[in-house]
């Protein structure tokens, strides 16, 4: 019997013949924390008897969730992380470099590796073929100490992608459709593995968007095979030698197989207050929006800003709607500056904030007022997510977000791209 992507990676990293349902101990290639989970991780690490980090060159600390620091408590936590990084020699990514998951994709993760982060959206690196998953601070502290952890080898849902996206339909619409279909707990403890001929037409940016939201269906990982597109992406990041070809065996065993024809998808929106509460964008036309947020580890990449700039070029945001744009990394911001997207967005009325998580988690840079409505390109719309339990969050693609910023209400972007 052949193996799924998860079984292949966990077999290799545990030195066993790993099969779904097995519990294995596997080496972790990259482990990281960020500034909302890092301090507890370090305190847990210090409660352990271990005094040294097992592999500091493969352990990373990111300051991205609250940058620049909005208050003294965060400033003190940031200094605590800086001090730990200096003492241990861990990799350190200072404020302004960007969101941990984007930087993991740009600089660290490669196909076939295991990545564990103290952040649920660690799954993002599955777009590169890495077995990447989020854990809490105690688990990550032990990986700091031992360089390994235990995994239950997940059963896998195979998602076969066929066809081509229609104009103005994108990876975000695909993953919202999938989560709407299987539900917010539809893949709990499972791996999502993407395949089918359409995968070879998805860019790495698109794959990262899809993998990023695997956790919103409860999944442990969202895995893509690696191919020539992965290879080219790694080459562009100066890491071409890290490429390996990774693909599932033809006779691998899947718990479920689903097929999605990309051509049948339309722009989708997740309505408050759960990610699986999904409907086509046009159904919601007329829904007024106070704030549009384009950014995050889901949709803050160059391709996302490109589609937003294309729609907003020469146009203005609606007078009752604020537009906040947060590039996912410094590289994204620099590239977007060079090709003129930032100028287009600023001219349309956008507030461009520094690379980082920005408004996504409700600590700063766009927390919502009572009864306000936000259309966001992020991955979560839980009640209270953006700083206020009395606010309403809709999730959509950058194209839908940009079109809606112009009209001031939820808008199907297709008519802006004719």
């Amino acid at each position: 019997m052949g193996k799924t992507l998860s079984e292949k990676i966990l077999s290799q990293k545990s030195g066993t013949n790993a099969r779904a349902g097995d519990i294995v101990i596997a080496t972790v290639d990259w482990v990281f924390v960020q500034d909302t989970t890092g301090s507890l991780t370090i305190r847990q690490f210090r409660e352990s008897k271990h005094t040294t980090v097992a592999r500091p060159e493969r352990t990373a600390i990111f300051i991205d969730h609250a940058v620049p620091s909005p208050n003294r408590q965060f400033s003190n936590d940031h200094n605590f992380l800086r001090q730990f990084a200096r003492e241990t020699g861990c990799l350190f990514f200072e404020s302004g470099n960007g969101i941990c998951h984007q930087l993991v994709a740009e600089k660290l993760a490669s196909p076939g590796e295991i990545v564990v982060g103290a952040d649920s959206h660690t799954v993002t690196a599955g777009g590169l073929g890495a077995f990447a998953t989020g854990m809490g601070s105690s688990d990550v502290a032990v990986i700091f100490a031992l360089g390994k952890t235990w995994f239950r080898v997940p059963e896998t849902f195979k998602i076969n992608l066929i066809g081509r996206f229609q104009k103005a339909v994108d990876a975000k619409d695909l993953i919202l459709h999938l989560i709407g279909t299987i539900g917010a707990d539809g893949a709990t403890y499972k791996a999502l593995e993407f395949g089918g001929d359409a995968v070879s037409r998805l860019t790495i940016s698109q794959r990262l968007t899809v993998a990023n939201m695997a956790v919103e269906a409860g999944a442990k990982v969202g895995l893509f095979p690696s191919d020539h597109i992965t290879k080219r992406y790694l080459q562009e990041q100066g890491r071409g030698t890290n490429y390996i070809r990774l693909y599932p065996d033809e006779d691998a065993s899947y718990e479920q197989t689903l097929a999605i024809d990309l051509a049948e998808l339309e722009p989708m929106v997740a309505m408050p207050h759960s990610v699986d509460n999904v409907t086509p964008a046009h159904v919601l036309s007329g829904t007024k929006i106070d704030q549009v947020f384009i950014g995050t580890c889901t949709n803050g990449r160059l391709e996302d800003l490109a589609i937003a700039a294309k729609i907003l070029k020469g146009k203005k945001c609606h007078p009752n709607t604020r537009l906040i744009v947060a590039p996912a990394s410094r590289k994204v911001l620099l590239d977007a500056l060079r090709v003129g997207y930032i100028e287009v967005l600023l001219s349309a009325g956008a507030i461009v904030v520094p690379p980082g998580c920005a408004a996504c988690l409700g600590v700063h840079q766009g927390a919502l007022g009572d009864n306000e409505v936000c259309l966001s390109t992020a991955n979560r719309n839980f009640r209270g997510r953006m700083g206020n339990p009395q606010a309403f969050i809709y999730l959509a693609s950058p194209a839908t977000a940009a079109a809606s910023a112009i009209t001031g209400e939820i808008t199907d972007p297709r008519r802006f791209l004719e």
Partner: protein
Amino acid sequence: MTSTILRGKAHKFGDGISTDLIIPGKYSHLRSNLSELAKHVMEDADPSFVSKVQLGDFLVAGKNFGLGSSREHAAVVIKMAGISAILAKSVARIFFRNAINQGLPILICNTDMINDGDELEIDLAAGTITDLSSGTRLTFGRIPDVMLNIMREGGLIPYINKYGDFKL
């Protein structure tokens, strides 16, 4: 874990209680001040939760408890509130690991049978839950051995300090 018999009152919640409802991201600046952070546990779901909970009580929920963020603080502040076990129909995977890693039992059972305010007695060793208010008796799903062993030591850090490594 010293006792395998737990007794307390049920505080009932519905389906899909996210980590943003357990402890919102807007309080992230308090994450190095756990006693201050713990004052806000569950406040957006039930503002009176902290004042109602007595030491040893149970948090009872529906499907997909703890979905969302990896913040282990969610398990930490529930435990700090005095909760001795979580009962739910299903639990998101990161939260499941986090609760066990904090030595907080998390039991999968049909919580429809339990009403808010019911007095419960849980036998962790026998795997049974008795609702003393209604007389109903429930069983809960088996926790994998690796997690059971971590829970028995009071959490992952004490477990690693005792054994030095994972013992499967």
